[in-house]
């Protein structure tokens, strides 16, 4: 019975681990230079298997449940805390790569986490795990920037193209669909929060906060959470429409 309760309590974390391993281990098992590996990596778009970024694929070392558990052990005293800290760290890594203009920030964050887990597995002395993760992330970023063709193009370098008459913008379609998926109250809050321009915006937000009996900060947090949700939904939907095969 006790074992059953423990299993229930850890279900979220185990699901998380399964997801993580399902996503990572197959890539680490890929045989070097196999056509399948090249195709898989090319599809994922973050790195080329012939580049330094492919070290995750080439190396003999691979992330497994044991090494991941050691990483989690460094992140928190118990499963819940470790899971939370892991999510915080991954989110921060994604943001770091994103703000540095990396195209596939999630992929690069996972590479950084793999390397962090590897260092822990190799018993490297780590005093501050967040600072250490930042150092790894900078190395991954440097490798990324050295790859040919990875330097992003400025907007004015891009050229306009002709768009067929019947072309529909999938992002806008997805945005509209995701907006409709929000609960009516939430949708109303979001749209009212972002409705006004310039100075009128401040007054409109004060009025909205009063209507909802919320503080300005609480309203801002709520609007930001709703917007994040809308953005995630829209991006996922757009990806599915643009690359239906990859999302299956």
């Amino acid at each position, binding site marked *: 019975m006790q074992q059953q309760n423990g299993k229930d309590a850890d279900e979220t974390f185990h699901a998380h681990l399964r997801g993580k391993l399902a996503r990572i281990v197959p890539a680490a098992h890929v045989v070097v230079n196999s056509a399948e590996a090249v195709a898989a990596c090319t599809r994922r778009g973050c790195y080329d298997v012939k580049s330094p970024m492919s070290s995750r694929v080439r190396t003999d070392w691979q992330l497994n449940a044991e090494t991941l558990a050691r990483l989690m052990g460094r992140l928190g005293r118990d499963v819940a805390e470790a899971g939370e800290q892991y999510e915080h760290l991954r989110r921060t890594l994604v943001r770091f790569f994103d*703000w540095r203009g990396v195209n596939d920030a999630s992929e690069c964050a996972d590479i950084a986490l793999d390397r962090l887990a590897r260092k822990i597995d190799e018993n490297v002395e780590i005093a501050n795990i967040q600072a250490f993760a930042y150092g790894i992330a900078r190395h991954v970023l440097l490798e990324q920037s050295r790859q040919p063709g990875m330097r992003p193009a400025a907007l004015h370098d891009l050229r306009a193209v002709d768009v067929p008459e019947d072309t529909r913008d999938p992002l806008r379609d997805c945005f509209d669909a995701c907006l409709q998926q929000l609960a009516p109250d939430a949708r109303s809050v979001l749209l009212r929060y972002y409705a006004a321009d310039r100075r009128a915006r401040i007054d409109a937000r004060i009025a909205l906060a009063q209507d909802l009996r919320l503080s300005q900060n609480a309203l801002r947090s709520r609007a930001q959470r709703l917007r994040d949700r809308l953005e995630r939904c829209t991006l996922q939907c757009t990806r599915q429409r643009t690359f239906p095969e990859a999302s299956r």
Partner: protein
Amino acid sequence: MRPTVDNETVRAYLLGTLPETDAARLEQAYFADSALADEIAAVEQDLMDAYVRDELSAVERQSFEEHYLASPVHRQRTAMAAALRTAAAEHRADVAPATGAHESGLWRRSVEFLSGVPTPLRWSAMAAAVLIALVWWATAIAPDAGEDARSRQAQSDQPSNPPTVTPTPPPKAPEQPPSNPDPPIPARTTRVTFLLAQVVTRNDSQQAAFVVPPGVDEIELRFPPDLQLPAGRVLVEIRTPDEVFVKRVPATAGGSSIGNRAVTAVVPQAELPSGDYLVSLMAAAEPNVPLGRYSMRITRK
């Protein structure tokens, strides 16, 4: 202790103009404190919103386009900010007839005017308006106040009745104190503003698509703020993609705030049916030489 990071530093970081040592310091700080990363994310959203609302300075706008929009993910995110803005504007237009009558006509223009001046001046203007209204009341209404008071007292026993309308004409709208909940409303003109931006890229190929909400009378086309315009009159010409002439209107350059040289043109919405259009800016002296061309698609909700 939590490091203090000011808004300007974060904006410079996101725009790629922060020196590398400062950027590294900021990154170390947000790796140590994920709440700080949340705050930076909030500034990022504000920055995108400011871009799509054309509220960035010319320097910031350039950095935004050269650095931030270099990332396809950031372009997608900014496109979503634009979509959110459009949806919010449509939502506002939908609810305006029911709750937003104060946004039209003279009253709206007064509020817009007041919202463009610094807060202390705005309060002074409001105080002056209240004073004028009080003086007017004392001279025009007060002599009859005793009689009116008796009739009002009789009517106040019936709270569900509409407010009494006195035969004395009310003061003109600009002299009304802004706190008056029922200012006189002149003929209603609802206008929607569309921002014409040259954000047409190889990957995100799209023309500017605008949805005209119901109840809109006029469409204001707003051009990017960093245009180099010649002296003299500037015209805006609208044609269909197969070069059929639709409309030519004068452009207005300026804007009420310093540093904002946005060029705008107003077209009655009825003259722009749903469809694709090419919009050209031209000097009145040289109408055959376009200063800039923009593509847009107008649809109706």
